[in-house]
């Protein structure tokens, strides 16, 4: 059976700058479990794209395999999407990005998809600074294969499927991304839309790899007592680093914060991320300070959320390669084929 929503547009639905209503950014009806954190993240993506006035065809959504990787069907129905293979979303997105540097690439993955089978591709996409937003819907388990512990399950955390405390240290994807030199690192929570939406928007404005590790409880297999990825646990331990507001380039900044406690991060495309910092000694554009803050929080069992690090000098892969500004997928014989004369010269050199 297919899940297509009836098309019904309220004539009075507000339109964004490019003439689309929020409905235009929705997808098919979700088939995930009711209450699954992943659906909230889909909603945040819809909200962010609507508010950012993204033209739907100028965005490509790509995923691996898992409950999380199914979500691209449930948002941005007017965008091209690609449900690839387990753990390999980064390479598919890298290739797609090489073909056309002008689109926004939204990669969606799970913690199994990223931290286990796809770990290799993940760190290399970070290292290459592929221009994309990379969201991990992190529930500490393999939802789609019925709840086995994933590599991000915290030490001692107990899931419904395993019933015993995890004997291994959980992989901290945020710390790992920073270690690999990621140029935009954030952590958020599916239940905190007010933080997640501006983060997604900022990620789309960032020229390079924008990583968002989003804790997203699996209500069916890992939302129990003893799990560190449950709604209640995350709510109790969430330590937001800042309150966020994303201001597009052409808008005036109206929000006001106390001096010293706020920071404006001017993104590459001119838009501004306003951070109301909750920890005054911390500077998200300073890698060392960000790194130590993340480590400290980890040691004390806090879940640090917000924009944790941003490199304002980020150069994305095309700039590192020196590729032409024109999308490669639009080049044809004229630009690509050197012709018979050049071939004769090559032949002559081989005689």
């Amino acid at each position, binding site marked *: 059976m297919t899940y297509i929503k009836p098309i019904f547009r309220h004539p009075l639905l507000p339109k964004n700058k490019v003439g689309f209503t929020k409905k235009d950014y929705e997808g098919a009806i979700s088939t995930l479990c009711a209450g699954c954190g992943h659906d909230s993240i889909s909603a945040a993506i819809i909200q962010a794209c609507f508010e950012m006035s993204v033209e739907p065809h100028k965005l490509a959504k790509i995923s691996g395999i898992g409950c999380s990787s199914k979500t691209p069907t449930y948002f941005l129905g007017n965008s091209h999407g690609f449900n690839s293979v387990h753990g390999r979303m980064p390479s598919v997105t890298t290739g797609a990005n090489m073909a056309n540097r002008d689109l926004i690439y939204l990669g969606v993955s799970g913690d199994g998809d990223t931290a286990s089978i796809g770990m290799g591709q993940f760190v290399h996409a970070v290292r290459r600074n592929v221009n994309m937003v990379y969201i991990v819907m992190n529930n500490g388990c393999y939802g789609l294969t019925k709840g086995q512990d994933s590599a991000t399950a915290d030490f001692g955390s107990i899931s419904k499927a395993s019933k015993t405390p995890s004997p291994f240290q959980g992989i901290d994807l945020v710390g790992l991304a920073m270690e690999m030199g990621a140029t935009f690192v954030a952590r958020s929570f599916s239940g905190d839309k007010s933080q997640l939406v501006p983060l997604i928007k900022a990620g789309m404005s960032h020229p390079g790899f924008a990583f968002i590790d989003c804790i997203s409880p699996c209500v069916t297999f890992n939302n129990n007592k003893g799990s560190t990825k449950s709604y209640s646990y995350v709510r109790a331990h969430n330590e937001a680093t800042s309150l966020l507001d994303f201001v597009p380039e052409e808008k005036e900044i109206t929000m006001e914060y106390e001096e010293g406690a706020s920071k404006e991060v001017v993104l590459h495309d001119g838009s501004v991320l306003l951070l109301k910092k909750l920890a005054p000694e911390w500077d998200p554009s300073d890698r060392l300070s960000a790194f130590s803050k993340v480590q400290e929080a980890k040691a004390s069992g806090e879940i640090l959320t917000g924009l944790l690090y941003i490199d304002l000098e980020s150069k994305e892969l095309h700039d590192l390669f020196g590729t032409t500004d024109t999308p490669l997928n639009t*080049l044809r014989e004229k630009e*690509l084929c050197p012709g018979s004369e050049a071939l004769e010269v090559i032949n002559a050199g081989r005689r």
Partner: protein
Amino acid sequence: MNTKTINDMVIRFANVNGSGSASANDMFAKSVFRMGIPVSPKNIFPSNIQGLPTWFDVRISEKGYLGRREGIDVLVAVNPATMKKDIESVLPGGYLIYDSSKVLHEDYIREGIHYIGIPMMAMVMEHYSVPRLQQLFKNMVYVGALIALLDMEMEVTRNIVKETFAKKEKLVPPNFQALDLGYNYAKENYDCPINFCVKRADKIGNKIMMEGNAAIGLGAVYGGATVMAWYPITPSTSVAKAFETYCKKLRIDPQTGKKNYAFVQSEDELAAIGMVIGAAWNGARAFTATSGPGVSLMSEFIGLAYFAEIPAVIVNVQRGGPSTGMPTRTQQPDILSSAYASHGDTKHMLLFPSTPAECFEFTAQAFDLADYFQTPVFIMSDLDLGMNEHLSPPLKWDDSRKYNLGKVMSAEDLETKEFGRYLDVDGDGVCYRTIPGTHPTKGSFFTRGTSRDEYAQYSENGQVYVNVVNRISKKWQTAKSHVPAPEFYQKENESKQGIVFFGTTTYAALEAMDILEGHGRKWDAMRVRAFPFNQEVADFIASHEKVFVIEQNKDAQFRSLLINELEVNPKKLEPVLVYDGKPITATAIIDKLMN
């Protein structure tokens, strides 16, 4: 008393790898080529960078036999470690050229061959002071000696030296000097020419010498590839190298100096093929080059591309077995694993080039086929073709040629026509696709594996799946008349028995046929150039009582593919197999055919 053998010999250079011998050996082979005589050099090398034995066999054949031949006529033995075995490979009446700076140990003395000592090391020590240069010039000394001994034209080699060092002119005079040292010593101390000599001929025409891998890299440039993703693996690495080198020359935007290509060395083969698929999905021509182990790693993705119907060009430069050792030897061992790569009911197009000219042409064509049929296409080369220089017709390009990007809908098409990603509108099994970014509200779809209907909507309905795979089979049928047709070597079938071969096996097979024809035995022959097999392939097999299938692997994989795909009675297909890692010889084929 001996009559001289002209333009028909095998010269073996037994070297240590990393000693700089390759460049001198290449210059020797090129000198023969420039003198108008067909030549086929083959490098036999270890999986190592320095210090292990390598052999470089140069076959010279005025008749144009370019396959490998057993038996060495002239051995240049400069590797003490393998000397004993090397000497055994010299045919009776043959020659051993050795470094006589030290006395030759009596173990190395053998009846029935000639010994020619050249004090190579002593001479270079006398004339050059830097040890590294001594080593390099020692190689040029034996080339100089060979020029005298075989009665070749010094001027030809000197010109090659000049071209080689055009950018390092300082190196020309000492190279000339080294050539002269060897040349003069041989002239003064031995009867020149020896019983083998190389005489100018006119058998080359407009042919070129090129490595298959270089031709593939260049074919990808001409074929419009803009994204290459790859992971280093012998013997395919030089495809990537060639693509990048030619791109740097031919693909730089004249206005901005920026690159009209992306060249990504990926973290492994899984990522390489993932990038290719992502790029092709997004409308760029993309390819990867790898060998058997890489294809194994790519398998899952190849299946996805097949079912999601995404173009991908995969160059498989085949080599022997897993791990190390055999991998620097040649074979054709991936026929079945490439044809049926991945899970589910998959089948892939294979192209079998046998010359650099075909490597070039088939690569360019592979992009058209992949785009048109929206499926992976393999170019099945091998180490022998890829890494050795081969005599080849020149590369050709017709400037009026247009890329066939297949059925891609534009924004205007989407305004006027119905779009269903997997609708078989034209009845040939090939559907229309859209590229992301084309139209603001029309033509977007969700790409996934098998579970989707004609409008790309998710479905787990069995009948929907059956429809998908049946339509893909139709595409496969259509492809049969689009892939390169086989080549035949007779106007009409004449014999009851036929022979079939493909790729590099062609060289030895043609030589075997020629020799047998000289003995009054003529076989009809067919060189297959692609899978799916065209109708002509089926017809050829049907019209012969027995068909010998010659290939370079143990399990007769090509024969299995014929049996499986054409439903041929296995009894009818006789395998002729060589799988010791060395290019197949005509002798091996004749032995099997005559028994």
